[in-house]
């Protein structure tokens, strides 16, 4: 804790690459607890990876959209595919239908994709479905590159859905998957299991959940972040 505080006082370490310095400085005074949710920029994103093991597996693609003031601008979305050399484990191929190199050849290295993402989201609030995993994947890559982690605020749509349902996540097993929620909230599920497709679906879900929370008096970022997470 103390160390973090000192680090902050000293500013970004000079040996950080440019993109990371810009990333860190983007956090200066943008968001506060009282910021109305309409003014908050949310980056809703999803990653597809070769597997579920954060240590071994690699990112295949990152998709992200920005939600701000109940609106997604398609001219500003992120849709990156990574060149693959790592041989994936069979089970993930079954889920995502992605064969590295087969579905989309990818035109960048994993770390390039992650840098694109970092530049894209800057200080935004990160939103995803079971977002912890996606953030870990990104962090793993960042760790290898510069020994750093994302510091953004984050929201999990599964947790928000449980909050809207006024239940704890463990009380409603099976109902918080993205498929189940899409069904519940009438969201068409085309392009499932592409990072960008899932990011878009999650963004629509996020807006619908946010609208329900707003009805219950959630008007500021502080009120939004206060909810339980898991």
């Amino acid at each position, binding site marked *: 804790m103390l160390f973090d505080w000192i680090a902050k006082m000293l500013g970004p370490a000079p040996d950080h690459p440019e993109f990371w310095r810009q990333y860190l400085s983007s956090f200066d005074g943008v968001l506060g607890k009282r910021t109305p949710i309409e003014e908050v920029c949310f980056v809703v994103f999803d990653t597809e990876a070769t597997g579920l093991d954060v240590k071994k597996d690699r990112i295949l693609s990152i*998709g992200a959209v920005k939600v701000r003031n109940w609106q997604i601008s*398609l001219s500003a979305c992120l*849709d990156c595919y990574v060149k693959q050399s790592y041989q994936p484990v069979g089970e993930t191929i079954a889920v995502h239908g992605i064969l590295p190199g087969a579905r989309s050849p990818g035109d960048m290295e994993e770390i390039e994709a992650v840098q694109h993402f970092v530049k894209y989201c800057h200080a935004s609030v990160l939103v995803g479905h079971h977002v912890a995993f996606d953030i870990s994947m990104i962090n793993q890559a960042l760790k290898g590159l510069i020994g750093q982690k994302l510091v953004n605020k984050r929201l999990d749509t599964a947790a928000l859905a449980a909050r809207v349902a006024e239940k704890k996540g463990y009380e409603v097993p099976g109902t918080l998957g993205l498929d189940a929620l899409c069904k519940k909230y*009438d969201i068409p599920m085309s*392009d499932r299991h592409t990072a*960008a497709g899932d990011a*878009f679906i999650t963004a*629509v879900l996020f807006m619908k959940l946010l609208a329900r929370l707003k009805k219950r008096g959630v008007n500021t970022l502080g009120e939004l972040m206060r909810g339980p997470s898991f």
Partner: protein
Amino acid sequence: MENTIPRRIYDFLKEFPPFNLLGREVLMRISENILVQYRQPDEVIFRQGDAPGTHIYIVREGAVHLLREINGESLMVEQCDEGDVFGIRPLLASDNYALTAKVVEESLVYAINVEGFREVLENNPRVAFYLASTFAAGIGEKYRKEGKPMLFLEQDKMVDANFPLVEIQSLEKSKDPVTCLPDTLIRQAAAVMSNHEVGSIIVVDEERRPVGIVTDKDLRSKVATGAVSLEKPITAIMSSPVITVGPSITVADVQIEMVKNRINHLCITEDGTPGSRVIGVLSEHDLMVVQGNNPALLIREVRRCKNGGELRNIRERAEELLKKYIYQEVAIAFISTVMSEVNDELITQAIRLCQAEMDEEGHQRPSAGFCWLALGSEGRQEQLLRTDQDNALIFEDVPEEDYDPTKGYYLKLAEKVTRVLHEIGYEYCPGEMMASNPSWCLSLEEWKKQFSKWIFEPSPKAVMYCTIFFDYRPIYGLKELSGQLTEHIFEIIGGQAIFLGFLAKDAMQNPPPLTFFRNFVVESSGEHKDEFDIKARAMMPLADSARVLILDAKVGKINNTFRRFEKLAELEPKNKELYELAADAYEILMRYRALQGLKNKDSGRYFNPSELSKMERVNLRNCFQPIKELQSLLSTRYQLAYLR
């Protein structure tokens, strides 16, 4: 970077008008720049009187109401559901929003920037015209002028529709043309031709490229005369080189080639040159078959028909022609002219045949002549598909002692004619509005009295008759009788404002529905119904309004509803725009009814909104506005409030 999300938007948009009229690349570019907006119930997207915004909108899911606010009250004008475009005013006009858009269900809305889209309009007149035509009177005049009313049939239907006129039909027939190699003997070739029952054989090389052609005419003139031996190779009598054409050739092209080369067979090859493989043969006979459905030819053939069955056959061929015209979006003025020419000729021939039959049966033709009148839709020259027959007969005034035999003769004739018309496929009129009914087979004097009675003593029943009888049109016989009747009517109608009031009231009986929403017809009361009666709810109100107005203007001889509106536009410049919209609306409705009728093999009158594509719903819905405005014009002009 990939395009996963815009592609999803693209996939949605391409299903809905007007985006389905755009090319892939253009639509993809639009999709890449779209804003996806989440809208909550009761949210107002724009308000009546607001300055024009920067975007137009498409409902992705949910529902948005368009409201007109008058004296603090909100009147619902439109319900938009999935795929509906709204808020296009900033695109076409620079004035403020005329309506308020209010969200009624949780909605996702796609917003497209006006600036970028305006450029798209410049390059895609069909889209511009579509948007302008979906827009109520007064706006987008610039675009509206550019085209005729259209159904904007989807592309796949247009392709289907290319069937009869062009090559396809004849190519089918001549698939697998009969061919032989150059060393085949004449005797063998002749045997092949007779086995296949064909009039020609193409001589081809090993690669199946055409070398020459031999027709039965060659066999007759060169072999049968003994000039050439049957044992010679076929090359001895073949014509060479062969005139070749490509597979996509029009009838006109074929005709030109045949006339130019003085030949009656053309060879179809893969690329149209003699250097590629033979894929078919076209003979002059094939051409005649294809051309069989040309209106002039049909009309000529009618005169050769000897009974109802033959006449029916012609009418069915005319329907094929109709189908082609409808699918190719030929102007309705042309279609209705052609179809009523055919109808008139069929009726005329039916009368001629029946008169001849009467002669044969020994009935003396009366000295008083007659005129056969078509009523209702045929009277208005609007009968595209066969519906009920409505007709009447006028005969010349006769001395009292001759009345009974004269009327007796014409009733008998009318009975025969209506029977033949029935055979052709025009159903008997359930209301007995036929010349075979003694009440509608009258002398000129009686007709004048009848119309006077209707006009001076209007009653709901009289008005009902008037709506049918006033659209009379002479088809056969002494047309001056019909002219005299018309003169009489205009003479007496002068001071009879009350009668016109009755007619106007009748024209307002059936207000159009408000709109279509999802699979329902939405009434102005908010009620939802699942069946739409295009005749009663949209066409008749227009036809009835046109009739009152044209009678009031004392213009005879124009029976066609859209022509009546065109005439009215000329006569009343201040209502020109409304009348033009009404004419367009009527044309769209006629087209749509014919289309439904051809599709469902019925009169096309009733259908369920779920049968309609988005484009079709929008097209139909747009016809409702001029109907409403016309009805309110009638209400003011004839002060209908007093008559109620």
